[in-house]
C-alpha cells in the first residue's frame, strides 16, 4: 500500500510543488496549513512521515515537534524538517527535538526532498 505523507507548510505554492512531486512518486499526500491543523490530522489518521516547516502561523514547527515528542509519537512517525531557517543553532534544535533530518528549502530541489523521504522510509 502506498505510504502516506503529511505536509505541514503554510506557503501554498511550495506546498503544491512538493505535494505534486510526491504524488508523482506514488505517495499519498495530506496537507496542513499550520501547526494546529497538522497536529489534528496526526491524531486522526496514521501517517508514515511528516514533512514539517518551522516558521508557521500560530504554533510553529518547533512546538509541533515538542508536542509530538511529549506524546511519544516521534518513535512511531519520522519527521523531516523542511525550512528556510538554517542557522546552526536552529538545525541543532530541530534535530535535538527528534527530527530525523533537516533540509533547507533554498538549498534543495524537490527531487532531493523526495530522495531524502525515500531514504528515511527505507530504514
Amino acid at each position, binding site marked *: 500500500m502506498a505510504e502516506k505523507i503529511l505536509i505541514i507548510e503554510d*506557503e501554498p*505554492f511550495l506546498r503544491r510543488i512538493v505535494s505534486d512531486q510526491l504524488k508523482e512518486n506514488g505517495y499519498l499526500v495530506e496537507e496542513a496549513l499550520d501547526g494546529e491543523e497538522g497536529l489534528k490530522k496526526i491524531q486522526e489518521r496514521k501517517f508514515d512521515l511528516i514533512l514539517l516547516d518551522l516558521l508557521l502561523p500560530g504554533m510553529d514547527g518547533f512546538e509541533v515537534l515538542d508536542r509530538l515528542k511529549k506524546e511519544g509519537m516521534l518513535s512511531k512517525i519520522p519527521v523531516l524538517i523542511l525550512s528556510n531557517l538554517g542557522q546552526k543553532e536552529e538545525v541543532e534544535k530541530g534535530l535535538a527535538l527528534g527530527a530525523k533530518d533537516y533540509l533547507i*528549502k533554498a538549498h534543495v*530541489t524537490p527531487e532531493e526532498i523526495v530522495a531524502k523521504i525515500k531514504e528515511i522510509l527505507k530504514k
Partner: protein
Amino acid sequence: MQEREKEIERFSLALENLPEGVIILDEIGKIIFFNKKVEELLGWKEEFLGEKLSQMKNLESFNLVSEIFEEEVAQTLGKVIKMREDLILRVSVVELKKGREILGKLIYFTDITREFSLERLKREFVSVAAHQLRTPISAIGWAIKTLIDKKLGPLTKKQSEYLKEIFQTNERLVHLIDDILNTAKIEEGKFLEKENEFSLEAIVEFVLNLLRPEIEKKKINLQYEKPFPKLPLVKMDVEKIKLVVENLISNAINYTLPGGEIKISLSMPAQGTEVLFSIRDNGIGIPERERDRVFSKFFRASNAMKMQPSGTGLGLYLCKNIIEAHGGRIWFDSEEGKGTTFYFTLPIK
C-alpha cells in the same frame, strides 16, 4: 584667583563635566579622581576616593575593572564591556607617563547602550529579511527545476536553455542570501560557537572532495602538499574554518583559467606556534590599486567581476572576520595576470 589656580580649576571643571566617564588612578592604583558621569552611570560615591581599584571586588561596577586589568594591559582602546543588560560601555585605558615614569592611569568610557541596541536591531532586521527572501526564491527554484526536469511536459531546446539560465540566476540569489546571513551572524559577535580541537588537514581534504567536480570540470591541475609529519590539532570552530577553506579554494578555482594550476600547502612554521595554510593559483590576480580593499565587505575586483559576474563580495570579508576571531592572520600576494597566493594562520594553543 591666581592664574595658575584658574588654570587647574578650568581643567578639573572640564573633566568633571565631560559627557564621558573619566577615572584617574595614581601609580599604585588608587582612585584619585572620577567625574559626574561615573557617579551617574556606575553609582560611585565620594568615599571611593583613595581606595584601591583592585580592592573593590564586591562593587557592582567591578567587572568593568576586572575585565580591563585581568590581562594587566597598560593600554586598552575602545573595548566594549557589557556592565548590565541596560548598560554597555566602550572603555579605554591609557597609561599616564612622563618620560619613563608612570604617574598613573586614565580610564575613560562612553555609554554606547543606544548605539548598540540600534546596531542589534539592524542586524536582526537583515537576518529576518534574508530569511523571508528565501521563501519566494525557493518557490521559484523548485518550480523551474520541476519544469527543467520535464515533469510538466516536454520543452523545446530553447525553452530548456532559458529555464536553466533562470535556475542559475536564482541560485546566485540563494548564495547572496546565504552570505548576507553569514555576515549578519559574524557581526552579531556570536560567531565562534563551538571551539574544538580539530585537524586543519581533515578540513582541507573534506573541502577538496566537495569541490573536486568543479576542479575536474575546469581541468585544473591541483597539487596538494600534505604536511609531514602531521600537523598538531588546532582549537577552532570547525564549521567556520570549513567556510574559510571553501571560500579560498573556490576563489582560486573561479579566478583561474581552465587548465590552470592551483597549489595548496599546509605547514607549521619553525616557531611552532601556528599552522599555516596557503593556496597559490596562476589565475587573473588582483589589480594593484584594488589590493587595499580585498577584505572589505561587498568588494569585488574589477577583473574578477568580468570573469565571474555572480560573486557577492562577501567571501573574503567573512574569511578575515573568522580567521581574526580565532586569533589568526590572513593575507595575500598577488600579481595581476600571473596569479594570487592567499595565506592564513591559526594559532596552536
